[in-house]
């Protein structure tokens, strides 16, 4: 997991995200131990591992939603975080979500509408989020993570509920974000997509006293 040149610039710029020696336990059960990661501009980093190996915990710590027990997380850029479960307001429409998450910035709301349309979700309806399909909810959740064009994207299985076409679209979008010079850290179970990643961080369930990476 050492430092790598950016695929976009080819230069050795500072990583947007550096995780060093990260450790986390829930009660006495260790989930992460000695995890390291560096995410550079123009990279897609896949985080894989079996259930319970700490993938979601790692992303939540990187996003700032949880504290680690040991180690450091150093972010040099704004981050957009898409959680595994969409975490939306059931009684708001997608357009109302965009207005809320844009925080009154007209440009951000318009950008969100374009993003959502590019993912195939129409804003014409007054449909509440609770009445959307699982895939449409997840697309809205992903769009909210992308608002404001953050340079670092932390995406926790963001394509859950997507149909095949949307799933392929997601990876095309990931390629576009990569070309834009963003760093994309994506949790995935799908080993067939690992060739799309510049780095793969495989987490293992902690059974032995050894680092995970």
């Amino acid at each position, binding site marked *: 997991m050492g430092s790598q040149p950016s695929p976009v610039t080819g230069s050795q710029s500072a990583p947007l995200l550096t995780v060093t*020696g*990260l*450790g986390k336990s829930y009660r006495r059960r260790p989930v992460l131990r000695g995890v390291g990661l560096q995410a550079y501009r123009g990279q897609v980093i896949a985080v894989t591992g079996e259930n319970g190996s700490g993938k979601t915990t790692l992303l939540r*710590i990187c*996003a*700032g*939603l*949880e*504290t*680690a*027990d*040991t*180690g*450091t*997380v*150093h*972010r*040099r*850029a*704004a*981050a*957009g*975080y898409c*959680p595994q*479960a969409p*975490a*939306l*307001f*059931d*009684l*708001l429409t997608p357009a*109302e979500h965009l*207005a*809320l*998450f*844009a*925080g*009154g*910035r007209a440009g*951000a709301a318009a950008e969100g509408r374009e993003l959502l349309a590019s993912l195939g979700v129409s804003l014409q309806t007054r449909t*509440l989020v609770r009445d959307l399909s699982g895939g449409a909810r997840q697309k809205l959740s992903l769009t*909210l993570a992308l*608002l*404001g*064009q*953050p340079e670092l994207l932390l995406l926790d299985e963001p394509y859950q509920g997507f149909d095949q076409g949307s799933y392929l679209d997601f990876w095309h979008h990931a390629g576009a974000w990569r070309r834009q010079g963003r760093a994309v850290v994506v949790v995935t179970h799908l080993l067939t997509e690992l060739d799309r990643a510049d780095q793969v961080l495989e987490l293992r369930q902690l059974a032995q006293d050894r680092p995970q990476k």
Partner: protein
Amino acid sequence: MTARLAAVAAAHTHILVRRRTTVALLALLPLAIYGALYRHSAHAVTVGGVASAFSAGGAAIFSMLPARAADQRLVLAGYRPAVLLTGRLIVLEAASIVISLITAGVMIAGTGPAHPADVFAGVILTGIAAVPLGLALGAMLPRELEAVLVLIGIVGIQITAEPDTLISAILPFHAASQLLDAAVGAPTALWPRLALTVAYSAGLLAIAWAAWRHRTGARSLSTITPARLNHPARARTEGGSHHGS
């Protein structure tokens, strides 16, 4: 700041309007309690007025707990927990005043108290305190069930406790309860009770803010992972800024 506060208030207005069945049931509850008592009890106005805390407090609880994960995302998008709380407070207090006016109007029409202004004041003060109480319970407790049970307990004790006891005096609706008693009895001064209710509400809001700040994981980038403060390899995060902030 103002745009964000307006965005939060607008969102919670939409949510409250779409929960109209729940809001209607919450609003009818104190009237139902008053209706069961008004022919038989001299305390019907006090009981019905304090029971309006179920409406405002319940609405506040239901605005907080289902939104915990979404609020975490809003914090990551640059919102401060204080803004998220204040937006709710504005919407819920406004709704509470409307419901209080209806509740007080019905009770005045039903009982014909000697001092009807005290009924309005008592019910409105109940709502003023009940919203921060609901926000605090919603911020501190993990699920709606627990929060509603605690609300029922507090309001129930306030209704049943003798007004001159310590337990009654330390609960949030004591001042409102005194005003409601005065509506059908000897008159009492409004301002000390208003001041007490506002002070109590401010304390509850401070608790709600601290608990919600903790629950939503609101950590600035310079303090994401304080972890164990004395640990030699304690985690920390540096630099950068949230998008949208």
